[in-house]
C-alpha cells in the first residue's frame, strides 16, 4: 500500500482569536504598547497627562466663586485649603463677566446684542444647513446687515431702512430701464443711482421721515462697545464682507484684462505683505487724513473697513487657489455651452471653486476672528483690553490666569466650532472623486 498522506476533508471549527489581540487588552497592545519604545512613550505620556490634568482640574474646580477682591479670594483659599496656590479665583469672572462679554454697553440694553446674535444664527441657518431649513429665511438673511446695525447702534430705524432702500432703488432702476434703454445703460443706472441716493438723499430723507414718524430705540455710542461682543461684531462684519470682495479680487487676479489684473495683484500683495496692526494704525490714525476734511467717522467703522480689506486679500488668495485647481476642461466646457463670462462663473466655475476652497475659507474666517483681538492695541476695549483694565482695578490687581482662561475658552469655542463645521461641510459636499 502506498503511504497516502493525510488530507483533511472537513474544516476545523473557527477558534476565538487570542485574548491578547481583541478587546481592551488587544487595543492596548496595539495602540499603546506595540514596541518597547512605544511602551516607554506611553508611560511618560500617562505621567505627563496625570500631572497636567491633576493640576488643572484641581485648579479649575477647587476654586472660589464668591469674593469681592483678589485679597478676599486668597483669604478664603487660606481658610479652606490652607494655601493660595493651585486654586482658581473665578470670583473675578463671576463679578465681571458681563463687562467682559459686553464691554461698556448699557446693561439695560444687553438684550439687543443678544437678540442680534440669535438673529445672526437664524439668518445663517438657511446658508449653513440649506437642506434642513426653509429658504424663506433667506429674506431675513438679506435684511440682517441692516438689522444688525440698527440693533447694535440703535437710533432711528429710518437710517438703516433708507440705506436698504438704496438696493431697492438699484433693483427697480435695472428692472425698468432694461426694456427701455438696453442692458448696459440699465446696469450703469442700477449702479449709479443707489450711490447717488446714499451720498446725497438717504440722510436728509431719513431725517425728514424721522421728524414726521419717529420710530427708534435708544442709541449707543461706539465707545461703549467692547468685550467679546466687539470681537464677534468685527468678526461677523469682516467675514461677511470679505467673502464677496475676495471673490471679486480673485476673479480680477485671474482675469485676462491686464490692468484689472495688476490692480488686483498690487492690492492683494500689498495687504498680505503688511501686518494687520499697521492697517489698524492706518484705521485709527490715518484714515481720517485720507478722507475729505471734516469727515470724522466712527473708529469701529474704520476698523471694520480695514479688517474687511485685510481679510479680503487673504480670501482672494484662497479662492484663487480653488480657481486654479479646477481642471481647464471646466472652463472650456462652459465656453462650449455658449455661456458668457458671468454665467460661466455663476453656474460652473464658482460653485466648484468655492467647494474646493472651503477649508481655506474657513481657516481664513477663523484667522480673522482671532485677529479681532488686535484692536486692543489701538485702544479699543476688546476682551483682552478689558482684562488689562480689570487688572488695573486695585481689587483685582495681579489676577491673570482666570481671565486668560476665560478669554481663551470664549475664542476656543467659536473657532473650534467653525473648524468642525467646515469638516462637516466638506464631508457633505464630497461628491466622491476619491
Amino acid at each position, binding site marked *: 500500500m502506498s503511504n497516502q498522506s493525510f488530507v483533511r476533508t472537513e474544516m476545523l471549527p473557527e477558534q476565538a482569536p487570542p485574548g491578547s489581540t481583541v478587546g481592551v487588552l488587544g487595543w492596548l497592545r496595539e495602540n499603546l504598547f506595540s514596541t518597547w519604545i*512605544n511602551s516607554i512613550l*506611553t508611560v511618560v505620556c500617562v505621567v505627563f497627562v496625570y500631572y497636567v490634568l491633576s493640576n488643572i482640574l484641581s485648579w479649575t474646580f477647587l476654586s472660589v466663586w464668591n469674593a469681592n477682591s483678589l485679597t478676599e479670594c486668597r483669604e478664603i483659599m487660606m481658610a479652606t485649603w490652607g494655601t493660595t496656590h493651585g486654586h482658581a479665583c473665578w470670583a473675578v469672572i463671576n463679578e465681571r463677566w458681563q463687562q467682559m462679554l459686553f464691554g461698556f454697553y448699557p446693561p439695560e440694553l444687553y438684550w439687543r446684542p443678544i437678540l442680534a446674535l440669535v438673529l445672526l444664527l437664524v439668518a445663517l441657518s438657511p446658508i449653513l444647513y440649506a437642506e434642513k431649513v426653509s429658504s424663506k429665511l433667506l429674506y431675513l438673511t438679506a435684511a440682517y446687515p441692516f438689522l444688525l446695525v440698527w440693533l447694535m447702534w440703535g437710533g432711528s430705524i429710518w437710517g438703516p431702512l433708507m440705506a436698504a432702500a438704496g438696493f431697492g432703488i438699484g433693483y427697480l432702476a435695472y428692472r425698468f430701464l432694461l426694456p427701455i434703454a438696453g442692458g448696459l445703460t440699465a446696469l450703469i443706472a442700477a449702479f449709479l443711482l443707489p450711490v447717488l441716493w446714499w451720498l446725497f438723499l438717504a440722510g436728509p430723507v431719513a431725517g425728514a421721515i424721522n421728524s414726521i414718524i419717529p420710530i427708534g430705540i435708544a442709541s449707543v455710542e461706539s465707545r461703549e462697545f467692547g468685550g467679546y461682543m466687539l470681537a464677534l461684531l468685527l468678526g461677523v462684519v469682516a467675514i461677511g464682507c470679505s467673502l464677496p470682495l475676495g471673490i471679486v479680487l480673485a476673479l480680477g487676479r485671474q482675469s485676462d*484684462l491686464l490692468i484689472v489684473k495688476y490692480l488686483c495683484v498690487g492690492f492683494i500683495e500689498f495687504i498680505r505683505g*503688511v501686518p494687520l496692526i499697521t492697517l489698524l*494704525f492706518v484705521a485709527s490714525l490715518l484714515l481720517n487724513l485720507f478722507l475729505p*476734511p471734516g469727515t470724522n467717522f466712527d473708529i469701529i467703522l474704520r476698523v471694520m473697513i480695514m479688517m474687511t480689506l485685510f481679510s479680503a486679500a487673504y480670501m482672494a488668495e484662497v479662492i484663487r487657489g480653488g480657481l486654479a485647481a479646477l481642471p481647464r476642461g471646466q472652463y472650456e466646457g462652459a465656453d462650449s455651452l455658449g455661456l458668457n463670462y458671468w454665467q460661466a462663473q455663476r453656474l460652473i466655475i464658482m460653485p466648484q471653486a468655492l467647494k474646493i476652497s472651503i477649508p481655506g475659507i474657513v481657516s481664513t474666517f477663523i484667522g480673522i476672528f*482671532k485677529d479681532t483681538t488686535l484692536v*486692543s492695541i489701538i485702544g479699543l476695549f476688546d476682551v483682552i483690553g478689558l482684562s488689562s483694565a480689570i487688572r488695573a482695578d486695585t481689587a483685582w490687581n495681579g489676577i491673570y*490666569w482666570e481671565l486668560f482662561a476665560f478669554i481663551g475658552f470664549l*475664542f476656543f469655542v467659536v473657532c473650534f466650532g467653525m473648524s468642525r463645521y467646515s469638516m462637516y461641510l466638506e464631508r457633505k459636499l464630497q461628491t466622491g472623486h476619491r
Partner: protein
Amino acid sequence: MTTLTDPPKEHFRLSMLLYDTRYRSATIQVVALMGFMLLAAWLLSNTIQNLEALGKPVEFGFFSEPASYDINQRLLEYDSRDSHLRAAFIGLLNTLVVAVLGCITATIVGVLVGVLRLSSNWLVAKIMTVYVEMFRNVPVLLWIVFAMAILIESLPAPRAFRGENPTATMDLFNTVAVTNRGVYIPEALFSRSLGDIHFFGESAMRFDVSLDLIAIIIVLAGSIFAMRKVTAWANKTQEQTGDRPKIWHILLGLIFVPMLILLVALGFHLGYPELKGFNFTGGTHLRNSLIALWLALSLYTAAFIAEIVRGGILAISHGQTEAAAALGLRQGRIMRLVILPQALRVIIPPMISNYLNLTKNSSLAIAVGYMDITGTLGGITMNQTGRELECVLLLMLVYLAISLSISAVMNWYNERVKLVER
C-alpha cells in the same frame, strides 16, 4: 464656384466700444484705470488738504533728531542720544531676531508634532492633537500676553537667589539664571580678541562686526569644506574598491581640532552671570519680552506647521510606504528617505506663508513691550514726533520689503526642490 469677397468694410462706431467683444475688454480696462487714478487722486488731494490744515507737511527730517528713549533689548550699541533712524534700525534688527528665532523653533516643534500626530501610539497622537487644537483656536495675542504673565509671575525674582539659603538656584551647573526679569545666559568672551571692524562710520546704520566671529566662521566653513572633500573621497573609494575607508575619526578631527586651536589662540572663555546687588550682571540678558514673544509665536506657528507637515505626509500615497517597506527599510528610514523628501514638495509653499505670518505677527511685540520696528518706529517715535503718516507708511514699507524678500528666497528654494517633470 464661389469667389472670396472682402468682408464688408466696417466703420468704427462708438457703441462698438461697449458691444463688440474685441473692444469691450479695452474699454473696461481704461474705465478701471481711470477709476483707480481718480480714487488715488481724490485720496491724495484729501491728504494734502488735511495735512495743510494740520500744518504738518510730509518730511522725514525728524529722523535725524535724537530719539531720547531707551531700547533695552538690542543687538547693537545704542543710547537715547542716537537718532530716530538709529532707533528704527535697532528695532528692525530686533524684528528680524525674533522672526528668525521663531521660525527655527516653530519648524523644529512643528515637524516633531506633525510627525507625532501620525504616531501609532494613540496617547501621543491625542496629546499632539490637543496641543494643535489648543494653539490654533486661541488668538496669538492672548498667547503672547499669557507667556509674558507666566514669565513675570511664576519665575523667581533675582533676590530669591540671594542669601545663605536661596529659594532659587541657577540652572545648568550654575551658568544660567532664570529670573522674572529675564534669562541670563553665559556670553562668549575673548581675552586675545582680534577687535572689531566698524561699518558705515558714524551713520545711523553703523554696526560692528567682531573679527573673532568672522575667524570662527571662516574656520568652520573650511572644516566643513574639508569634511565634504573627505566624504567624497570615501565615496569614490567605495565605488572603486567596494570597501568604505573608515573616516569618522578624520571627520571628527577636522571639525574639532582647528576650532579648538582657534578658540585657544583667541583666549575664549565664557562670562557667567553673577548676582551683584539686586540684579544679575555679566552674561547675556534675554529680556522677558523677547522670550515671551519668541515662545508664544513659535508655539502658535508650530501648531499650524504641524498641520501642514501632517497633511504633507498624508498626501504621499501609502504605496510609497509599502514599497519602501518591501525594500527592507526600517520605519525611521522610510520616513527620512522616502516619505519626507516627497512630502517636502507639498509642505514648502504653505510653510513659506507661515513663516511670513510669524514675521508679521512679531509686530504684536508692542503688546509686551519688546522694541521691534513696530515698537520703535510705529510706537514711541510716532508718538513723540506726531508724524503718523510718515511713520506708518515707512513701517508698512519695511514689512513689505521683509515679506517680499522672504517669499523671494523661499520661492527660489521651492523652485529648486520642485519635482522636475519630464
